[in-house]
């Protein structure tokens, strides 16, 4: 139910948008109350960017209603633009200007006086740890600094709702952490944030609420913890020293798992979903130990986006047959109910798994 005093910061109902043959949004519903950080999580092509661009009034939905802070984004886009700040997938800053000049420019366009624009620029530069680099040309900035400046550019107008479209894609881990830190501070200062991401851990780190989007629709919605407990089990992952041991390892781990183990030959790993959290790790270690096989690593970790996604949709993120080195090797373990489909997208899996937060012994 809506409060009459404070409308939802975002209210999307039945949003659709088609680009040629591509149905980017297929009836997306999302209502976000003020004071939340919402992460929209989904694979490439899920409609995340189209949704953000609709909120930023850069895309007009074909159908459905979209309100930002109670204002109809289709009828009154100019009012919505006063409320939002957008930081897109690229660092949209001018390389031939200094960090300060970039922020000053955007602040002026937000309607600030020269003096106020200068003050805001200085404030934001300090907030993002760019004071030392403020008067250097952006072309001398690192990728992480550019992204932070880009974030800053969306802040100088003091927006109520910050829209961040894959804010950390392509950043190294340290820059990613710095950007996360900056976003957390903003949130603490009271800015509402909607961010899109492909990474479960990013959603986990930043958001109170995670909305999983697939094929232009919301397929799951909840706190990060809720989603994981609903949609994905913790995973025990073992890295074999010799890949010839993989079938034996899979056989041994089948006993501790609640579903069949999966073998990832390309990365010499076996994964198995488990229940019971930390207690099963001991059982897994004993099982591997009893086998007498050398392993490089064994650990319990949270499910990756792949795994959550697979559990929710029954299909992997990108059902594309690639020439992955896992193909054909994945069913060799002979454990009951073994799944093979997740191995068709080994590349994504490996990337996301490496980013996943380990929660057990490693």
């Amino acid at each position, binding site marked *: 139910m809506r409060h009459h005093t404070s409308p939802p910061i975002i209210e999307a109902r039945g949003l659709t948008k088609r680009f040629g043959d591509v149905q980017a949004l297929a009836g997306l519903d999302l209502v976000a109350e003020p004071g939340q950080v919402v992460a929209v999580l989904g694979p490439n092509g899920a409609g995340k960017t189209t949704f953000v*661009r609709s909120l*930023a*009034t*850069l*895309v*007009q939905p074909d159908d459905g209603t979209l309100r930002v802070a109670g204002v109809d984004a289709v009828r009154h886009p*100019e009012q919505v*633009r*006063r409320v*939002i*700040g*957008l930081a*897109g*997938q*690229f*660092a*949209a*800053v*001018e390389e*031939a*200007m200094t960090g300060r*000049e970039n922020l000053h*420019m*955007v*602040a*002026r*366009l*937000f*309607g*600030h006086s020269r003096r*106020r624009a200068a*003050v*805001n620029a*200085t*404030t*934001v530069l*300090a*907030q*993002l*740890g760019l004071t030392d680099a403020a008067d250097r*040309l952006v072309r001398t900035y690192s990728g992480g600094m550019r992204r932070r400046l880009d974030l800053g*550019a*969306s*802040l*100088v*107008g*003091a*927006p109520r709702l910050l829209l961040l479209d894959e804010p950390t894609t392509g950043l190294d881990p340290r820059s990613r952490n*710095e950007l996360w*830190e*900056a976003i957390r*501070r903003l949130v*603490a*200062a009271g800015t509402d944030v909607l961010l899109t991401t492909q990474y479960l851990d990013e959603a986990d780190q930043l958001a109170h609420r995670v909305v999983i989007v697939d094929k232009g629709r919301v397929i799951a919605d909840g706190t990060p913890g809720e989603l994981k407990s609903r949609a994905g089990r913790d995973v025990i992952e073992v890295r074999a020293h010799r890949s010839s041991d993989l079938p034996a390892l899979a056989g041994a781990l089948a006993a501790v798992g609640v579903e069949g183990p999966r073998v990832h030959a390309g990365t010499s790993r076996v994964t198995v979903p488990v229940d019971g959290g930390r207690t099963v790790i001991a059982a897994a270690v004993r099982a591997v130990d009893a086998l007498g096989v050398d392993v490089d690593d064994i650990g319990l970790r949270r499910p990756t986006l792949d795994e959550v996604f697979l559990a929710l949709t029954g299909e992997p993120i990108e059902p594309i047959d690639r020439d992955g080195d896992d193909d054909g090797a994945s069913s060799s373990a002979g454990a009951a109910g073994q799944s093979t489909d997740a191995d068709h997208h080994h590349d994504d899996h490996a990337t996301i798994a490496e980013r996943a937060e380990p929660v057990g012994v490693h």
Partner: protein
Amino acid sequence: MTTITFDAGRIEPATRSAGLVATAATVAGRSVRKFVRTPQLLVISTITGAMFLLIFRYVFGGAVETGPVPYVAFLVPGYVVTSVLFTGSNVSSGVAEDLEQGFTDRLRSLPVSRTALMAGRVLAETGLLALGLAVTTAIGFVVGFRPEGTAVEALLAFGLCIVFGFALMWMFVLIGLVAGNAQAAQGMSLLVFPLSFVSSAFVPVDTMPGWMQPIAEHQPITVMTNAVRSLALGDPALAGLSGSTAHWVVLSLAWSVAIVALFAPLAVLRYRRS
């Protein structure tokens, strides 16, 4: 390690929107800074411009029959007019690049008039074009060009080029918006070549094949060249033209108005379209 503190002050939201003039001036400031701080652009375009002028003047020039006036007097007005096109095609690439890199999205998500954003860009680029044309004209002087008309006529000729540049700038911005990326924009800008060469800019039109002459005679580059040439030579007859200088000036202004009337709304529409 970067330390991030949030006590440096509070960011206050703006109480009003940026006005049209402030908006245009702000984005214009960006274009000018970019130009000034990327000196290689200026150097490269000046060198290319000078090189082609020298080639036309000294290599082709001897073979072109231009009646009562030396080829250099015939060439430089046409050359200055066509440099509007070559400068403009760089603007297309710049606009497309902004689109590609999300800079345009940033601007379009701000609470400002999109028409003012475009107008600022077009005005800044026109100003920078004027600078480039002044350099080109100066090189023309170096290779022996002297205007035969009055100083007022010469200034008028230069002003006409800038008006024409302003008009065409809308077309180049539209090309950049439609192209969507810098390479495509460069490809689409190839239309600059037939426009420049199938005209009176470098050679008299009457040496062209019969079917080509009507096109060459009536397209805007020819009209503009004829106007500028009439002013520069002080007499249209010297350029082998019938009609008075005023006739050509009015006609070229009419073309400029028509070009703005066609391309400015299209560019604005395209820019606003989401």
